[in-house]
């Protein structure tokens, strides 16, 4: 599979995503500059973590206007796999590709630590290799990771089985402990925790491979003619 990692000014987990995909999962991976009008011939896209445009205005609020986002929207509409991690999740909600919003953590402080997560659904290209109810421990690192949405949206997400990950211990005040969600077509996922930081035994955990491995597997299947 060939995965494209979008680089906005201020992205800082772009290299980490690239490294996990290319070195830990042995896939072809390349960077895509924010000014690029197209995604080239990639099979899947990662919007990485970081502080795109310095998080000015709101996290992800400026990134949604980047030229590359037109291409990402089209790619997603055509069924392409898009994974937004941390700031990437924020960009996806700002861009309207995912519902809800991410606001300041409950205690108003940045939080960096490993957190246990529940895999809520395996009916997704991002978790089909995991087990339903399985606990994955992944690092979070964010100041604005509190997921909020209207009650109707939350009900809809749950009714349609689109909540992918929940915090077992809520570290940021997210509604209904939501850590990751899908779009209606299930080809776009946003998650606050960092699977790319838990994909190398040297880093102390490989739980992130349950997510990235599923992603690669789905991408490979999709890219087969």
């Amino acid at each position: 599979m060939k995965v494209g990692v979008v680089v906005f000014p201020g992205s800082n987990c772009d290299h980490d995503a690239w490294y996990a995909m290319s070195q830990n999962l042995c896939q072809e991976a390349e960077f895509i500059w924010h000014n690029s009008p197209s995604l080239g011939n990639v099979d899947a896209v990662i919007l990485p973590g970081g502080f795109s445009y310095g998080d000015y205005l709101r996290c992800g609020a400026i990134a949604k206007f980047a030229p590359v986002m037109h291409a990402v929207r089209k790619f997603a509409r055509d069924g392409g796999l898009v994974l937004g991690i941390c700031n990437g999740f924020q960009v996806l909600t700002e861009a309207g590709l995912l519902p809800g919003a991410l606001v300041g953590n409950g205690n108003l402080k940045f939080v960096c630590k490993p957190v246990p997560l529940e895999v809520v659904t395996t009916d997704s290209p991002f978790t089909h290799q995991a087990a339903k109810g399985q606990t994955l421990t992944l690092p979070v690192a964010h100041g604005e990771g509190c997921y909020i949405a209207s009650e109707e949206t939350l009900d809809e997400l749950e009714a349609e089985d689109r909540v992918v990950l929940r915090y077992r211990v809520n570290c940021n005040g997210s509604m209904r402990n939501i850590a990751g969600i899908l779009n209606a077509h299930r080809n776009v996922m946003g998650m606050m925790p960092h699977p790319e930081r838990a994909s190398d035994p040297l880093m102390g955990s490989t739980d992130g491979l349950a997510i990235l491995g599923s992603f690669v597997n789905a991408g490979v299947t999709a890219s087969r003619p």
Partner: protein
Amino acid sequence: MKITPDVITAHQLTASEYDKVLGLLGREPSITELGIFAVMWSEHCSYKSSRIHLKKLPTGSRRVLQGPGENAGIVDIGDGIAIAFKIESHNHPSFIEPFQGAATGVGGILRDIFTMGARPIAVMDSIRFGKLDDPRTGDRNRRILEGVVSGIAHYGNCFGVPTVGGECVFEESYDGNPLVNVFALGVFRHDEIFYGKASGIGNSVIYVGAKTGRDGIHGASMASAEFTEESKQKRPNVQVGDPFMEKLLLEACLEAMKTGAIVGIQDMGAAGLTSSTCEMGSRAGTGVEIDLQFVPQREPGMTPYEMMLSESQERMLLVAERGREEEVFAVFRKWGLDAVKIGIVTNDGKLRVKNHGEIFAEIPNRALADEAPKYNRPFTKPLRTAPLNGPEIHSDDLASDLKRLLASGDLCSKKWIYEQYDYQVRTNTLAGPGSDAAIVRIKGTNTSVAMALDGNGRYCALDPREGTKLIVAECCRNLSTVGALPIATTNNLNFGNPERPEIMGQIVESIEGLTEACSFFEVPVTGGNVSLYNETLGTPVFPTPVVGIVGTLETAVPVPLAFNRPGSSIILLGGLGKPDCHEFGGTQYAKVIHDLLWGKPPALDMDYEKRVQSTIRELVRERAVESAHDVGDGGLAVALVECSFGPENVGADVNLESGLQPEILLFHEGPSRVLVSTGDPQKVFSVARKNRIEALEIGVTLESRVIIRNRTQRLIDCRVDELKNIWTHSLEELLQNPILVNTNV
């Protein structure tokens, strides 16, 4: 503007320094020139009080590629890879405006690293405050701590560099003068090293990054004076940082360096445009001529004086080969940054500053960078206020003492702090905050770098020379405990007013101690920072040298600090120690339980220490131990308990055989000791024997309890989860409800 004695005094220049200015120029300076001299000759930029003593430090080894004098030291780590690292203080700005003061401290040291061509891969912080539970100053101390921590987090997290470790200490002596020392480390290949040199007559001088504003004017001179009531009015002297701008600057600079068009580059740190121009010219033996009309400005109407002294952040000065400027501009355009030619390199050795063609300053670069006054200030025996003898030590409840120690600001978990830092970004952090030393792997190689920061104001207040040797020993031991070979040092010397002979005495003794220890442990000093005048209303801080030492090891999953299964042998390398009661007066026990400081620091046998370090390095490298932890602050009991705070809560059942009184046995801080657990005690004994050090089997690991006996007397018997709970949450509680913490435990 007329240069009157008042104007000269306001620039913190003495009459004799002004005479020297007259001599070097052969005429009266303009006000712009006076400002330039004042800032370059400030203590902060010129090290005028410490330079003659700093010369004593060992600075070379076969690994050192760049010693002191550049933006950062550089050390070879093999395979054509090098690391650049340095520590800097931002004490004064952090007191006046904690958040921005600390944030720009991080920004400044990061620029020092990437200006040399290295990509920053780790930051550590050594921070010291007044006590959080002080009824008089606690409120302010808590506010400063919160501001400093969020400032560091704000800058480092956004920039995308992991904050992997550090230290945090609370002591009355830092009440009116907190210490914020920031360390950064970067990595590059040997052929990617850049220097701050304005070489090549006719080459272009290019300004890149943020626009120049009126912020931070005279920051360097502010950092060279004591605090008074008026200091609060100096708030506009503190700069404001923009980590996003710095991240763009990093990427753009590293990319521009790859074009091959850049000859030299330096960040605009303290004294901004002034220091970068004259230092780059001085190093290359060239002149630099700039015209300020081309400098990107944030507001109209700034004078040449203001522009030359502005300390606006996130700016760099670079020299590009004539005719290849466009290659450089193209890269900065891509990143959306200002890059403007503001002048050229000349052959006359002078810094010439014009504005719209009119000359405002013309000074030989060497006069500013190399001819700064050097003082051999008078010094006496170091200031010492602590008595030699302490009280009778007798405890009725050692377990309660242990709990109070674990709840104390210095010894409790710093989770509340480090969870606000992204310590993992760039996915290299093999061991992060809470480890004896942080370990960061170098991707694409089989090498990792270990690093630690250590300081101990209490030991140094008792004896600056021995105290400094002890912190070097401790820092090297921290690295060795994770299996790394210490290879080089950076240091931050935080002291009071050097014009007081008894303070100067502390500085001299400490530098000599540093010299002795760094020579002995073969960790040459490649750079650092001196922060003087750390006094408020005449009260100096404890003499506080902070050392940052780096080492290398083979990349592998680290040996943990904590016990990980019951039934393993616990061995104390280095033995129980033979302290006397004078050597107990600097300990955390003396501080927390008795609120006192007396006596002298623990005795250090450097030769023995070195052999302990060789032993633990070999044991870790060969995986002969299941866990390893340095015995440091709080002594043996605290170290044993810390080893029990792993995910599995594995404690210890320890039986000691000692004639020492229990309080001293449990809590003395004698150096040269490391605690290990192992399934193969014979192997540990044999390596220890080879190195001629004591290895004492003191017990076995045990599920969920810590029991310590001496000659069948039960000294401590506690549940691990109870101790862990106190240790884990204490800092948060100290911040929320400082009075409760003291009465609860």
